[in-house]
């Protein structure tokens, strides 16, 4: 297990380094220097010179790359072109909002998705199964930001039940909880569909396996077979997909946060992109890639714990 963990984490670190390098290369590959792009055509030469010096763009490329890596490793992701605030501070300020949104969205989707999946297994082959199948695919197909807009229209504007903007007042749990409901609903609905289908498929596969027959042959109760013998295997693909899903959740968060003007990574990066605020875009991308790799690696380690066959593949 330890060998496996070390290998898996090492792989994540290598990927992160490659990504950092690629990001940096991209900025230099395109014509025009980042400073003029950020400031626009009407910038005064003095302003430009000042920004170039501040971003360290006057130094030789290898020094810049070195500085970038060295700073990033120390947690310094650069400074906002406009506000001059450290990028990492801005990220850490809004990241909890995005994290809460993602966890709440995945959480309710997991509960409902697993329940619907199990329901489809119990009623397999019936009209209920077919209806759930169509419902799941539809949920997968509808873009989350359209759901966000529609729910904003209905629940915030027309019915006025829930707030239309923001993440709630800091320190006020009630208002924060109310603010997360609609965005989490919009993001989670796709995942209800995915999980329902995934759980249905893997449960059906596992319940047909020989060892389930053995457990029945030894008179174990159906409830015990499902919870101890089947679910543990059926949950493996779900954990794997949830981790990948975190990347997808981030994508929807970018749009949905904007719809609800909810402070978060999504609103941070979109406004930075519009303003060509390089350090913020690159810092955020790097941070989220690292976070994403962390989640995926953690999921792999969890899978290795759940499935002893996986860790042996890496041992040998």
């Amino acid at each position, binding site marked *: 297990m330890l060998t496996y963990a070390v290998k898996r984490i090492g792989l994540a670190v290598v990927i992160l380094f490659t990504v950092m390098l690629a990001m940096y290369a991209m900025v230099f590959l395109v014509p025009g220097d980042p400073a003029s792009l950020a400031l626009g055509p009407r910038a005064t030469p003095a302003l430009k010179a000042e920004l170039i010096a501040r971003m360290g763009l006057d130094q030789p490329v290898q020094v810049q790359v070195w500085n970038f890596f060295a700073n990033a490793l120390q947690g310094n992701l650069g400074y906002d072109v406009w506000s001059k605030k450290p990028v990492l501070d801005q990220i850490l300020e809004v990241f909890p909002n995005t994290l809460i949104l993602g966890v709440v969205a995945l959480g309710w989707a997991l509960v409902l998705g697993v329940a619907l999946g199990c329901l489809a297994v119990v009623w397999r082959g019936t009209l209920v199964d077919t209806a759930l199948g169509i419902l799941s695919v539809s949920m997968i197909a509808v873009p989350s930001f359209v759901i966000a807009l529609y729910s904003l229209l209905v629940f915030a504007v027309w019915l006025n039940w829930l707030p239309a903007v923001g993440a709630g007042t800091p320190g006020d749990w009630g208002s924060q909880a109310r603010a997360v409901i609609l965005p989490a609903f919009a993001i989670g609905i796709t995942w209800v569909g995915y999980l329902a289908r995934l759980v249905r498929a893997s449960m059906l596969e596992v319940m047909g396996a020989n060892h389930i027959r053995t*457990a*029945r042959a*030894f008179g174990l109760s159906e409830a015990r077979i499902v919870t101890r*013998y089947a679910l543990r295997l059926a949950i493996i693909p779900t954990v794997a997909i949830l981790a990948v899903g975190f990347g997808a959740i981030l994508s929807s968060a970018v749009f949905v946060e904007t719809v609800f003007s909810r402070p978060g990574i999504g609103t941070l990066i979109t406004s930075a992109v519009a303003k060509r605020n390089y350090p913020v875009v690159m810092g955020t991308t790097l941070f989220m890639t690292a976070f994403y790799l962390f989640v995926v690696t953690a999921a792999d380690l969890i899978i290795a714990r759940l499935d002893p066959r996986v860790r042996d593949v890496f041992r040998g």
Partner: protein
Amino acid sequence: MTVLNVTDLRISYGPVQALRGASLTAAAGEVVGIVGESGCGKSTLASALIGLPAPEARVSGRVEVEGRDLVALPETARRAIRGDRVAMVFQDPMTAFNPVLTLGEQLVDFQHRLPAPKAEKRARAAAMLARVGLPDPQLALRRYMHELSGGMRQRAAIAAALLMRPALLVADEPTTALDVTMEAQIIHLLRELRQDHHGAIVIVTHHLGVVGELCDRVYVMYAGEVVEEGTTDEIHHDPRHPYTRALIACDPAHIAGRVERLPTIPGRLPDLTAPPPGCAFAARCPQAGPDCAVPPPRVRVSPTHAALCHRVRP
């Protein structure tokens, strides 16, 4: 004392009539063999014997274990008998155990009806593993199935079935997945076990050699029917049914000298969705005649020996 009494058991999967009226018995302390080609319905029979037919199977007839009819009982009552009064050694030991639980966890689970603390169940499991000849049982209990060899898995499967000391033990092809040396070892083990196992044992196999080594009595099956039954001696030395004779002729142990290739029975099983109205073996039988188009009688040759054929004389 009769432990198992099967009468006129019929099982079909949709249009496929896998079992067409099989009857058999097994007494305590007895080892009974069931032989036949692949697809003749052996596994179907075995799963009915432990009260666990496939969900899509339609079952009629009686399967009485210690006087209780598994076919008529409700599922909850059947479940109470499974793993307690009847147990099974499955055909494929690789997939028969759960891959993500250790052997120990599963063996403890299988004793769920025993009112005993977990530690005691573990100790019983270890003792049974030692009994079936697994070296270092304590270590084996902590292992996952993919960490055990084929032979070890098969021993573990046998140990699992014996844990609750069932009245009826059914072993479906206990040696088929193994190589020749392993097969010999498992047969040796089963022979040893029959000394101190007091219940009935039913061994399902397509290998006559296994039957000869282990069994007291034999049922020969063809296309979902029992075509001949008798003591092991009677079947091996005085086979009456043409199908049994053909099976014995194909058995390597019965062929003297060297041959280019092993003989096989020409032709194949009839279509089980529309079995012939007369003798099911007629299409492949060297002795078939016009009368074989009507169902053959079951002819008693001795109190223990009977065959289902027009040509057999008492």
